[in-house]
């Protein structure tokens, strides 16, 4: 939970001076205990912890101070509990590391000593003193003293607070039905939670449903995903809302309200048996997205045979309304040309975002010749060519003459690892190229020459390096080239292609091939930026969703209750996406499994009498947590506690001083500032 607030302090209001407090008898004021952490040598080797402890003892209201190694350890915590009880301490300051990491630990520690957890304050003498002033230990110690003095000044004014309990709706929404979403949904549904799976396209399955084989085992992709898709479709706890868009998300952890538009399929899902008789009767064809537009589908059809839900869809952009499908459907009466978009609202306690990725169109990379040379394909197009259920029935044929190529060149890093296009590595292209190369070589052996023009071969997970070895053994020719100065030319007569590049020594290399396959960059999903706005979660510079913490919270977002999994958070392959889907499900279950969700009480409080309803705070709030509402004949700002993140921007922007932040009030912050300035004032 992010904390901390910045306040513009104009003229400090009149209040007690620190000096006055000092004069007061110790017994009457709060009883503060200061625990200085040595943190092994992280702190103690720079900061003079003994001097600091002695100094702390001199501070007003400090009745106890000691330094110890690792107060965060079990032993250390126990010692704090005992000391607090023994000395009847009612405020605790730990001078150690970052509150972001350890505040919750010590809050629970003091609560074990029967103290309100918000009567605890942390002074960060590691990041602020020992880490950043390693060469000047004396100054570091002085700064540590300042930091401790400030913490004590605030501790003196801390108020006990009560945590806020929010009710939790025990339902969850998974946005995106790819392999990550499927796993998240199945796990959550098996745990007993109601799952809504919202999918933009006609069917769940994502990219995995379009692949032929998966690396490094060469399993049939749809054979492993298909049953899972069917499980999702049949699970009593899962409701698939496909061919739908998320329009709006309101609310907060435990209590999200999601507005969804179900787009019309012009087919009544409940009546459609998926028999396909309508499709056979339909006279109109259009390019099929699921075949990467290499093949066609009917104006009423499903994108591929394993589609879930198995409901046909009429594409009204192409349909000529002959109603032959209506005749074919007959008594089932599943076709309804009057269907309208339908908006529904769903309440959920948590949201898992798994919208996946998109593919970069390499047409604007002129050197590839893609779109100009007929025998240059993208990897996904090639995937549909080798797929037995694909538009060519698994035949690899050239576009120029319909013949099987005798040589194929694969080009890596097309658009990715290019600072002018996409700086990142697309992560799975090396492996799928190895897969394609091995499949070609093992099927056609000497009858085909396979080249892989690569820069670095990234095969760094279980079984991947072994697969690279298998590719090398199978006779695939690997040509290492620089990413710069690559180009492809076409022979206008034969339509054969020549790939040119430079090896590490800058010497030219080239190979002629009858077909070229580009490993084009994977890019953020088209829907990502819109969804980021709807969910109020950040997008990174690369266009993928940003996780809360890259190491230890990779599936959390900044918004509690919204989780990420799969390639929408960063490109990853199938096993990793599956694992992350399950991880996000577990995270979501942490929210859903409780009757209520506890929020830190550090949320803005509005003094309704002072509030003028000017809406300054409402527009300043980045979390949409403040709404100005009518109370009687007066407009006042109301804080949605579940959304408030305690940043304090409302409080600092309020012209009427009507908004306060508990334990970050003006008085407390001014006291800290005065404590900070104290030493300098004395010196001058």
């Amino acid at each position: 939970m992010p904390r901390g607030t910045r306040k513009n302090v104009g003229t400090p209001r009149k209040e007690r001076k620190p000096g006055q407090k000092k004069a007061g008898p110790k017994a009457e004021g709060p009883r503060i205990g200061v625990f200085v952490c040595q943190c092994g040598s992280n702190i103690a080797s720079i900061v003079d912890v003994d001097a600091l402890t002695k100094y702390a003892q001199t501070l007003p209201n400090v009745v106890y101070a000691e330094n110890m190694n690792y107060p965060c350890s079990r032993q250390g915590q126990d010692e704090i509990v005992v000391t607090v009880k023994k000395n009847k301490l009612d405020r605790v300051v730990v001078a150690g590391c970052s509150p972001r990491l350890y505040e919750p630990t010590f809050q629970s520690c003091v609560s074990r000593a029967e103290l309100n957890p918000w009567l605890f304050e942390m002074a960060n003498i590691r990041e602020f003193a020992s880490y950043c002033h390693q060469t000047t230990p004396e100054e570091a110690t002085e700064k540590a003293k300042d930091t401790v003095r400030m913490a004590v000044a605030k501790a003196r004014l801390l108020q006990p607070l009560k945590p806020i309990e929010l009710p939790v709706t025990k339902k969850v929404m998974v946005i995106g039905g790819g392999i990550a979403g499927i796993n998240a949904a199945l796990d959550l549904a098996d745990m007993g939670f109601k799952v809504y799976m919202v999918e933009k396209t006609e069917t769940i399955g994502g990219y995995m449903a379009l692949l032929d084989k998966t690396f490094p085992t060469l399993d049939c992709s749809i054979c492993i995903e298909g049953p899972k898709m069917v499980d999702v479709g049949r699970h009593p706890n899962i409701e698939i809302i496909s061919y739908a868009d998320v329009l709006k998300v309101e609310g907060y952890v435990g209590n999200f309200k999601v507005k969804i538009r179900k787009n019309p399929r012009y087919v009544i899902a409940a009546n459609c048996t998926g028999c396909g008789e309508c499709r056979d009767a339909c006279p109109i064809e259009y390019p099929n997205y699921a075949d990467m537009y290499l093949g066609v589908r009917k104006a009423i059809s499903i994108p591929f045979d394993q589609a879930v839900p198995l409901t046909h869809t009429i594409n009204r952009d192409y349909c000529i309304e002959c109603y032959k499908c209506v005749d074919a459907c007959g008594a089932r009466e599943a076709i309804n040309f009057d269907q309208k978009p339908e908006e529904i609202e769903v309440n959920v306690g948590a949201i898992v975002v798994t919208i996946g990725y998109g593919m970069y169109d390499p047409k604007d990379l002129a050197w590839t010749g893609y779109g100009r040379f007929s025998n240059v394909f993208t990897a996904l197009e090639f995937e549909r060519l080798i797929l037995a259920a694909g538009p060519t029935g698994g035949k690899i044929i050239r576009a120029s003459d319909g013949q099987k190529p005798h040589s194929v060149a694969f080009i890596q890093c097309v658009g990715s690892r290019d600072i002018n296009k996409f700086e990142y590595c697309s992560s799975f292209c090396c492996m799928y190229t190895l897969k394609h190369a091995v499949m070609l070589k093992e099927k056609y052996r000497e009858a085909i020459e396979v080249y892989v023009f690569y820069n670095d071969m990234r095969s760094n997970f279980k079984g991947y390096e072994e697969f690279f070895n298998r590719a090398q053994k199978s006779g695939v020719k690997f040509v290492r080239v620089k990413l710069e100065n690559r180009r492809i030319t076409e022979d206008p007569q034969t339509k054969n292609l020549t790939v040119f590049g430079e090896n590490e020594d800058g010497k030219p290399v080239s190979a002629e091939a009858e077909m070229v396959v580009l490993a084009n960059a994977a890019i953020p999903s088209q829907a990502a930026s819109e969804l980021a706005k709807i969910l109020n979660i950040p997008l990174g510079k690369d266009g993928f969703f940003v996780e809360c913490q890259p190491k230890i919270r990779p599936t959390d977002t900044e918004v509690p209750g919204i989780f990420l999994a799969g390639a929408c958070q960063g490109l990853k392959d199938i096993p990793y996406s599956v694992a992350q889907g399950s991880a996000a499900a577990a995270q979501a279950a942490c929210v859903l499994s409780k009757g209520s969700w506890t929020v830190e009480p550090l949320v803005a409080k509005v003094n309704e009498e002072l509030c003028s309803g000017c809406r300054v705070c409402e527009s300043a709030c980045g979390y949409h947590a403040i709404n100005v509402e009518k109370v009687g004949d007066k407009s006042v700002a109301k804080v949605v506690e579940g959304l408030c993140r305690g940043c304090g921007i409302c409080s600092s922007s309020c012209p009427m001083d009507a908004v306060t932040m508990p334990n970050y009030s003006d008085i407390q912050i001014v006291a800290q500032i005065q404590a900070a300035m104290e030493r300098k004032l004395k010196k001058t």
Partner: protein
Amino acid sequence: MPFQTLKKDTAQELSLEWVLHIKNYKLNLDKNRCAGCQICSLACPKEAIRIEKRHKAQGEKAQKAKVDIDLSKCNFCGICDILCPYGAISVTVDGKHLLSVLDKESFPQMIRDIKATASKFPMDRDKSEDVCPMELIKVHFSTADGKPVEDPGSLNESERRALKVDVEVDKEHCPCCGICEAKLPQSAMHVRKLLSGKLAIKSEKCPPECTDCLDVCPINGVLYLSDDDKKVHANEMFCVYCGACKVVCPVDEALSFKRTRVNHTPVRSGAWNKALERLTSPTDLTKELKAKGSLKTRESVKKRIGLKGEQHA
């Protein structure tokens, strides 16, 4: 190779293409045959075809309207191809002129009821071939032993009588005006109209010296300039009811035109009903539906009563 959509527009033809790895869809509009008549544009279910009246400079002849097809809307269904009275549009899939809408009975086949009786044809090439304003009739003469004869006029009477006559009519491009039937000897040709309708010119409403309709009419003999009043008059007998004249007519009341019927194979299709309504009128559509519907209506009533009976049981 990614999916490509291509459009080419030259003086001779307009062509649209979908190039997929495994399939190729092509639409070709022969501008020489096109009369700018609007039928394709009215019938197109995707409203992809636009007819644009060309600007006419003073003193110049009117030009037939220009046809433009929106590549982003066209789905290569071939309805324009089926309906074009002049056969100016051709839709092909992988080079083959096989239309799925006909195959699946989503659209009717136009009936060009044209019969040629070769024995009744005059033994004269010019007199036979030149009657057709579209030059669609070809006559072949040959001797009894199969030798082709180029100019029967050079032979004597008895030799001529012994000649074998073969008549070839390019039905695909024939709008069925019937001029051949009228001009050739009786029973040589039999032509039934493809489209029926009404055409009338109110000469008094025509702007002075306007011959726009006459300028664009592709069939010589339907419209003519009267020597008496220097206005255009119509001979409805040969009109094919394409409507090219109506498209260019500058005065709304001067030319009244409507289609009432299309000669076609029976079909049950929403797309056809919609096309027919736009080509003729809602009344004419109702007429057709009634004509073919009486049987269907009886069937459906029976079905409903039958279902009710089952429910009671």
